[in-house]
């Protein structure tokens, strides 16, 4: 398939996954507030921290009020990772490959964007945010479902899956990093109801609460981190995302399992092996933040390698396809 098309479908799915994650973070935070009303002002700041874009937010907003954060993360067109910007980018990518994706996918994505961009979207987000962000999440799930059931699972679909898995792995590591960093030092909270609520929120941010409960029953920071990084079956754990991305990558290149024929496969395979032969105790002993930071860097390198392997056949053309912005 065309390199430009592969690039577009990869990014279309990354952007949709990114939009969904932002909506989920906001949703969880809204729920958290119901349990801890007194903490109101402090609870919107971490949300901006997860995105890594505090500087831009603070340039435009004096305080981390609910409205300011929701406006920024959801509707700010100048902020490239706002839900609206992500959907606009996903849709532009989708538009450039309309003939590749199914019309169900295109019409859904088109409608998703148009309704969000409508002024009634903002009103609803501020007046009934719980419902609003739930709808955003469900729509992005619907997109994923449509992709699975209306598009052939060929090369294009595999690129789409890789985009989605890479984005998801990155986001899960960020949630964990920020929350762990923020929650852990507060030693006086350990085993208090507040502590429990907070860690529950971390799990919910990755839609992981119920599945975690079935696996581990009791909530401890170490087990939560372990679940989100190492669980082999939970669909948002980093390990799972990497395994899925690797499968898709091998389907595209045709390399047999256990071998690697290009840089992307080599890098991803190495991360996968590392995760499979590491456990949470080892990670915590060495420092979780350092571990996650390193992981994010390595994920970015895989992304770069996918670009040079499939998207930018640079030596052959003068103006290579444009790179899209990285989270």
């Amino acid at each position, binding site marked *: *398939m*065309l*390199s*430009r098309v*592969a690039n577009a479908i990869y990014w279309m799915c990354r952007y949709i996954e990114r939009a969904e994650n932002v909506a989920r973070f906001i949703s969880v935070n809204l729920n958290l507030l119901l349990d801890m009303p007194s903490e109101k002002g402090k609870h919107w700041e971490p949300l901006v921290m997860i995105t890594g874009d505090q500087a831009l937010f603070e340039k435009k907003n004096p305080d981390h009020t609910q409205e300011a954060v929701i406006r920024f993360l959801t509707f700010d*067109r100048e902020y490239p990772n706002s839900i609206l910007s992500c959907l*606009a980018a996903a849709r*532009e990518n989708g*538009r*450039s490959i*309309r*003939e590749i994706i199914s*019309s169900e996918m*295109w*019409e859904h994505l*088109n*409608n998703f964007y*148009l309704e969000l*961009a409508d002024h009634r979207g903002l009103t609803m987000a501020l007046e009934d945010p719980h419902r609003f962000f739930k709808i955003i999440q469900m729509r992005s799930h619907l997109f994923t479902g449509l992709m699975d059931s209306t598009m052939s699972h060929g*090369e294009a679909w595999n*690129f789409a899956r890789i985009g989605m898995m890479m984005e998801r792995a990155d986001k899960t590591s960020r949630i964990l990093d920020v929350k762990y960093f923020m929650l852990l030092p507060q030693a006086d909270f350990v085993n208090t109801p507040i502590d429990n609520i907070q860690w529950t929120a971390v799990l919910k941010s990755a839609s992981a609460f119920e599945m975690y409960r079935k696996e581990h029953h009791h909530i401890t920071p170490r087990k939560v981190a372990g679940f989100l990084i190492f669980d082999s079956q939970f669909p948002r754990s980093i390990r799972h995302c990497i395994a899925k991305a690797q499968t898709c990558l091998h389907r*595209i290149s045709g390399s047999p399992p256990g071998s690697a024929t290009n840089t992307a496969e080599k890098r991803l395979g190495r991360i996968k092996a590392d995760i499979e032969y590491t456990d949470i105790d080892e990670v915590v002993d060495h420092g979780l933040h350092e571990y996650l930071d390193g992981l994010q860097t390595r994920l970015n390198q895989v992304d770069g390698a996918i670009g040079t392997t*499939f*998207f930018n*056949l640079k030596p*052959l*053309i003068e*103006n290579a*396809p444009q790179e899209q912005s990285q989270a």
Partner: protein
Amino acid sequence: METFSTYDPESYYDELIDAHGNPRPSAQLLVDKIESLPTGDLIFRQKAAEAMLLKMGITFNVYGRDEGTEKIMPFDIIPRIVSSRDWEQIESGLKQRIFALNEFIQDVYNEKKILKDKVVPEDLILTSRTYRKECEGFTPPRGIWCHVTGTDLVRDSDGRFYVLEDNLRCPSGVSYVLENRQVLKRTFPQVFEASRVRPVDAYPSKLLEMLEFLAPDHVQAPTIGVLTPGIYNSAYFEHSFLSQQMGVELVEGQDLVVSDGFVHMLTTKGLKRVDVLYRRIDDDFIDPEVFRPDSMLGVKGLIGVYKAGRIAMANAPGTGIADDKVIYAYVPKIIKYYTGEEAILPNVPTYICRDDTDRAYVLAHLDQLVVKAANESGGYGMLVGPHATETERAAFAEKITAEPRNYMAQPTISLSRVPTIVGDRIEGRHVDLRPYVLFGEEIYVQPGGLTRVALTKGSLVVNSSQGGGSKDTWVL
């Protein structure tokens, strides 16, 4: 009230209603249906159709406004109906015309018989801005130049169809024909079925067959691509739609590269050879090595590969010569020259400004004529005399005197009208008709075509860039 009881066709030819205010036989079913609808229902169906088009993403970008400003091409749900008798004449007339124009282009770039016989003045050809010296001595694959044509037809108050323009370069709009039909089938399902409307949806298959027919002989299963300028082009939707319908690649200039004497696509698995391109980029931009060097849209070296017979292109570069609005005036003679027949579809009478007698007439009657520049499209470079101000006419007179070769003039045609929803009423609006013609192994005319409608009261300009909309066209 949305009803025909108060509808007035005035002095125009109305496509659905006769001079006495009665429905024409072909429109009887439709008019009865509309009359039977409860109050407000027609408007409701109109709104539903618009919502459907927006949801399908059949929009074009409005430039220079806020991001996210997109509009659907205005669409009116009352169809234009063409009787089978009218259609027979249109179809045979177009086949005759396209055949002759193709002969003409081949001749002009090769033996130049028609110029030597002085049927068309040679200097007119050589001074045309769309004449491509690079095509001299070249014969395209299968001898076909104008593979896709969208001829503009109008009907005057005498009830006859005339050819207004031949669009032989990259005519657009056929995707609207296909999508409008999808929408209208859902808007008037029973009437549609009972009227036995001829289907339009064979077009993508016919287009694909035509493109496959062009592939070089040594190629078994040709790789075909639609070459688009990209998502910011106003016809991008159509490019993407057609490639999807045909199941072929949609490529941009940046996806193609010339290497080892062939054109290749850049794919995730390396280079892949392309055998046929349906290009939707103008000649000027298609190859910076041969035409405009500043083009970012084209493919360097494409024309070289094309001339070596290693890739086919539709339409062939150089067809614009037959699109020159002054050369248009000679088409009836061109038809006679190559087929020995009279033109089945007449031209609109045309005054050629390089001719002294004609020019004197034009300058003296600017208030009654429509003046057009030889190589503009989309309703630009045009003077509609009766609607222009004194100053505008004076300015045009100067242009004509300075550059007579570049202008022609025609009497104002009172374009026929079709009932159209305006607010909550039905009023007559002027229309034209653009049928699409494919020239491959044989010539195929899509039954129907794009009916463009000037939505502004009294306006004769139907171009979408100037406030025009479209209607579905039913050929019975």
